[in-house]
């Protein structure tokens, strides 16, 4: 006796389509997890970079404004780390700006050889502005 439509179950084609849809959904979830993991690692690297650059700025300020790359420590695992510092002389009576930058290649980036960068600037009163008129 032929079975009704309700009793017939699923045909192979229906099973394949449903599993394909399920697989696609799982792939999307895993890809999102992977992206979240990379973003999380990037943020953590930036936090460590911020700590290192803060240290470098403080050391520079307390070394007579002379940046010395040997005096700063690069966080572990930072590839191709490159320190640079820049001092912008102030016009008379203004503030001078000193900036320290750390660049590194992020192994966690979604793009190959993507360079991350963190810069911190401080402003110091020049002697002209600090002295009373």
């Amino acid at each position, binding site marked *: 006796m032929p079975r009704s439509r309700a009793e017939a179950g699923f045909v*192979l084609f229906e*099973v*394949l389509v449903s*599993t*394909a849809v*399920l*697989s696609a959904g*799982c*792939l999307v*979830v*895993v890809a999102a*997890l*992977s992206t*979240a*993991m990379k973003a*999380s*690692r990037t943020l*953590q690297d930036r*936090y*460590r970079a911020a*700590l*290192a650059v*803060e*240290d470098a700025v*403080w*050391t520079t300020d*307390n*070394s*007579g404004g*002379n940046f*010395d790359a*040997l*005096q700063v*420590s690069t*966080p*572990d695992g930072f590839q191709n780390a490159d320190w640079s510092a820049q001092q912008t002389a102030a016009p008379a009576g203004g503030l001078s700006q000193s900036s320290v930058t750390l660049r590194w290649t992020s192994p966690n980036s979604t793009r190959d050889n993507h360079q991350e960068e963190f810069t911190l600037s401080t402003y110091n009163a020049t002697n002209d502005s600090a002295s009373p008129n």
Partner: protein
Amino acid sequence: MLLALGLSAVILSAIYSLLFVGARNWRRVRQRAEIFQTGRIVLERLESDLQNALVLSKGQLHNQFPFKGEASSLSFPAMMSMIDPQAAQAPYEQPVVGVVTYAWNQSASGQASSLERDWTLLIPDESPSYETTGKDVFPPLISSVTFSYAYRNAPGGYPAVVWSGQWHQPERIPGAVRVSLVLTHPDSGEQVTLSKTIPIFHGLLGDAAWVADVKP
């Protein structure tokens, strides 16, 4: 039927593997985030206390509670704020002076070491309605902590700022304290080192002539 079962098994296995890998990665992310959050909390707590450090006026208290700095502990008087539960109206927070101590307590076996923060209020003659002593134990993810203190080198000396694991000038507050934390997650074994220089704006750099163990 067999073909359908076979295909379903293959596809379901692939889905299971994908989800397993995803869940494992997610767990790793959470563990690593836990490490960083713990480190951030410890560093912020230390920064808050150190930036409120003060020197007590000359006298008995000054001699009793100087700024003591060692590689694995530091103790100093500081301005703190306590919430007074009996205060009828604002301000509910009372500024008080206390002594804060951070110490890395290494157990004999090395298994149960922990970073502890002890505080004691210096209140000579009142009976406050709030606690006058306390102890905070930081989460066990911390596997070591090292403190070092900033000294100014002699003129022309290199480097200009040197760091030592001991503060030799208890009559003054150091200009900066460098904290190096090593955090290890017990499940994954992942290790992260966080190093922060905490400037103390009203502190002074030490005199490097006092430093015996200068590390450039």
